[in-house]
């Protein structure tokens, strides 16, 4: 096995060779445990770079330089920030429920890290190939909501509790279109395994983004809402609920919640790339797994750039708009798309992939236009905004004297 083209398998073989004289199950157990450590550390290490990327991108959008003092291009700014966070005073409110209070940040970070266990980084580079991988992602995501409730309740702070209620209301609501839109790649790949979903997208036009663009966009939007990023960042409103559920946390515990949220933002980019853009698939990725990893990271970072772009350009959405957008637009549209896709996959079974993609793409366009017309029609039915007072007279310049003289 070549180290340059497939380092993960090469290291694995080498380690197994070192432990060749151990009793039967133990070398596998140790190697698997090491794999857990590697995947988790990869995610956490990535956060350090992602914070820098996020700040640089946001700075460019706002015509600033961003961090540029510590290290080349400000690369070590995050390291300095982390050191600062860890040396801060670790405060716990009086009357806080201490075990729950201390457990909540850990659970919050875990709920994100656990998702990475089923992500295929490249051909055969994956934690575990669960045959219910997609459902597992949904299940683990629901632990995040539990962590938020625990943090808000155990802080013994009204603002934290109210913030937790608001966060969980948003998470639970947006889980509905999220789960329905995840069902569409499952339907197209005929499997719930993440590995099988990537395997099914083996050609360029076979990427599920072309087959189910509406599902991809709904998944993306509701994932952003799950993370609570702009424009869905109602979870942190200084004038209403201060900092939300994590107001009482400081130091290393706050760092854990913060790292979890940041990693979650990248994880949704990873999931979008995996479920809808073919994950590690690309030219030459079958033969050289390292190339697959490069494609995987490139696609994920591309989606992450869009997340950052939205974050630094869109204003915040109002809370009633947020909920009605979810329940009255995204959920019905996702359900309609699911039904249409289910029918079309059965009708088009056995046709060429590009033909399937074309028909499904067009059906999605038609669905989107219909949804748009329904929204317009409903908006036109609403009573118009009452105009207060009469239209005011507007000062106009007098007609030009030269023209008047001629007349």
């Amino acid at each position, binding site marked *: 096995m070549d180290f340059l083209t497939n380092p993960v398998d090469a290291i694995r073989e080498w380690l197994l060779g070192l432990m060749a004289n151990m009793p039967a*199950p*133990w070398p596998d*157990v140790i190697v698997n445990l090491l794999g857990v450590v590697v995947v988790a550390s990869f995610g956490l290490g990535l956060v350090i770079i992602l914070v820098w990327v996020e700040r640089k991108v946001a700075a460019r959008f706002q015509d600033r330089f961003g961090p540029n003092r510590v290290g080349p291009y400000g690369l070590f700014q995050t390291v300095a920030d982390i050191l600062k966070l860890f040396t801060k005073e670790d405060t716990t409110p009086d*009357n806080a*429920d201490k075990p*729950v209070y201390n457990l909540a940040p850990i659970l919050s970070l875990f709920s994100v890290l656990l998702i990475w266990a089923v992500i295929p980084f490249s051909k055969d580079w994956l934690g575990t190939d*669960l*045959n*219910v991988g997609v*459902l*597992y992602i*949904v*299940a*683990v*995501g*629901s*632990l995040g*909501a*539990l962590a938020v*409730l*625990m943090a808000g*309740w155990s802080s*013994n702070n009204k603002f934290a*509790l109210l913030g937790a*209620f608001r966060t*969980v209301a948003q998470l*639970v609501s947006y*889980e509905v279109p999220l789960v329905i839109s995840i069902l569409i790649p499952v339907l197209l790949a005929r*499997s*719930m395994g993440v590995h099988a979903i990537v395997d099914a997208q083996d050609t360029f036009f076979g990427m599920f983004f072309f087959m189910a663009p509406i599902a991809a966009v709904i998944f993306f939007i509701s994932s952003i809402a799950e993370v609570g990023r702009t424009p869905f960042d109602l979870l942190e409103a200084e004038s209403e609920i201060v900092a939300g559920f994590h107001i009482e946390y400081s130091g290393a515990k706050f760092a854990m919640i913060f790292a979890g949220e940041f990693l979650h933002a990248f994880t949704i980019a990873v999931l979008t790339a995996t479920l809808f853009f073919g994950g590690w698939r690309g030219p030459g990725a079958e033969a050289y797994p390292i190339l697959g990893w490069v494609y995987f990271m490139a696609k994920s970072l591309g989606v992450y750039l869009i997340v950052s772009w939205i974050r630094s350009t869109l204003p915040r959405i109002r809370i009633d708009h947020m909920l009605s957008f979810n329940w009255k637009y995204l959920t019905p549209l996702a359900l309609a798309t699911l039904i249409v896709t289910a029918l079309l996959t059965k009708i088009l079974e056995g046709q060429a992939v590009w033909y399937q993609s074309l028909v499904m793409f067009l059906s999605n366009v038609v669905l989107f236009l219909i949804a748009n017309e329904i929204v317009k029609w409903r908006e036109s039915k609403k009573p118009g905004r009452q105009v207060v007072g009469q239209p005011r007279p507007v000062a106009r310049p007098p007609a030009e004297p030269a023209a008047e003289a001629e007349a």
Partner: protein
Amino acid sequence: MDPIQIIFIVVALVVLAAAVMVVTTPNLVRAALWLVLALFGTAGAYVLLNAGFIAVAQVVIYIGAISILMIFAVMLTRRVMTDSGPQTHQTWWLPALLSAALFAGLVWMLSGWSGFEASMPAYSDANQVVELGVALVSPEGFLIPFEVASVLLSAALIGAIYVAWDRD
């Protein structure tokens, strides 16, 4: 000892301890959190039995939906931090008797069971989810129970919407 056996013992002990804590913790929210741990441990036991789908469904339904709903209800209806009540009830002996009878029945049933010595069937590569799905909709399988459950759930959903409907 097999690593799987060690994991099973740990999981079983966690489930039992958490279940005891559910009924002995005076604080309601904490009791709900112990319940979450017990349910999570049960999901772990399903994983050890190669029933991945059931395990994940357990986490989605019981932890993701039911326990969060319970915690929400407790938090919204009680004083948040200082809520604790007595741990016993006047008629505590009746459930104690019933659960003792249940436990004795279980022990009696399992004492005659020959499956303890059997080794676990080898993990099949067949897609269990597909098999489960086909079984749920095939007339030879569980079509009628499945449809009855669907009708019941639809009725519950419609009823919930009717109760919550704003009739102005």
